[in-house]
């Protein structure tokens, strides 16, 4: 019997001939993924996953972002629920561009994130109770600004976030044992060296 493994068979020829151009916008929407490396450390933005809804996004984010390095928790939110400030350059602080805003809306908790270096990741710095995203930005500028220059601020309504529950933290129990998923654990250099020694004694 021929192999059933598609990696051995690869795609059948007729399928390649009938390939059609990809339809535009045929992907799922994006969700932002945040990872907590250790207890007590802040959550850090790590990237996106594509998914049809929040729960699926959580499911896919777990392996896409936390199958290698030790972590204790993740959370995800729809990209459309991330409210962003202007991005600043040079010595300009993003908070300087945030104007006072008040809201009569129902007070809800917002998570606040700072970008402290261009090209790095947004890191969670605290939370504020606000009636709107604009008010959350303004309150963050009053209470969470800190000493360091901030290039960009994000606020996300906590109720829009799919958090990891306490009991779900067991999802990462065996992660520290999975060194084999780390490229460094493969010791490619050592393998190459011993191969070369074998070839040229």
């Amino acid at each position: 019997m021929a192999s059933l493994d598609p990696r051995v068979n690869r795609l059948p020829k007729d399928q390649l001939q009938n390939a059609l151009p990809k339809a535009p916008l045929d992907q799922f929407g994006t969700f932002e993924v945040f990872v907590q490396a250790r207890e007590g450390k802040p959550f850090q933005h790590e990237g996106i996953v594509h998914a049809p809804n929040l729960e699926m996004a959580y499911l896919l984010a777990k392996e896409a972002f936390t199958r290698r390095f030790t972590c204790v928790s993740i959370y995800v939110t729809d990209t459309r629920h991330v409210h962003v400030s202007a991005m600043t350059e040079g010595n300009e602080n993003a908070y300087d561009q945030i104007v006072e805003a008040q809201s009569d809306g129902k007070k809800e908790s917002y998570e606040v994130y700072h970008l402290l270096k261009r090209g790095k990741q947004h890191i969670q710095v605290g939370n504020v109770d606000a009636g709107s995203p604009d008010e959350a930005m303004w309150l963050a500028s009053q209470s969470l600004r800190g000493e360091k220059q901030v290039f960009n601020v994000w606020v996300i309504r906590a109720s829009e976030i799919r958090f990891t529950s306490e009991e779900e933290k067991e999802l990462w129990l065996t992660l520290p044992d999975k060194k084999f998923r780390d490229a460094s654990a493969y010791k490619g250099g050592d393998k190459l060296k011993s191969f070369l020694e074998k070839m040229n004694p």
Partner: protein
Amino acid sequence: MNTEALKELLYKMADDQLILGHRNSEWTGFGPILEEDIAFSSMAQDKIGHSLALYTFLEELGEQDPDTVAFTRHASQFHNCTLVELPNGEYDFSLIRHFLYDTAEALRFESLRQSSFEPLAQVATKIRGELRYHTMHANTWVKQLGSATTESIHRLQKSLDYALPYALGIFEPSPLEHDIIKDGIFVGEEALKSQWMKKVEEVISQTKLRLPAWDTLTAMNGGRVGKHTEYLQPLLDEMSEVFKIDPTAEW
């Protein structure tokens, strides 16, 4: 403790995990979307890891080393249920198999946390987080596609109808079942099957899929005593290709 009964349990569990781990790994690079490709491959790797842990217990009980056991036996010497050796087919079938098998696997290991064979109880406790993810993954996908579109519901239903008799083969009783239960090694296949049916009903009832009446189904047994489908031997030949060229190779 009846060591033969224990070994038989370990063999069938390890063989299930190895064969399904290999089958699921065949999706690597071909998953429906990148994120799912990664998740499914990662779980396949977990399953191979579980099989290694169980083969290692067998070695300590006097059987051959894990590589020899995994790579040199003929299909008729494998004790996996036939469900896990069936070809992947389309993703709907692989997902349904993943759901049906992993539901049973998670319940089995949950019960084994109380096993009188201490090393098995420890492993069952240690890997509970991995199994939690595997069942969370299966349940979320089945709920998603089982309620999404006419096509997704139809395809999952077709795969479910096809897979169920094979899934019942997971619980093919062992002739040593009595000793396994009496010695407190495991609650036994019959008890596991009723827990599994309840869990499967619970998840399927949250979708637009239908479960046939259990008493209309006939279990596809035989796998546990080495009677396999035509699909197992080619899988084994492929899996052991490198080992057979060079048993000392590391890769």
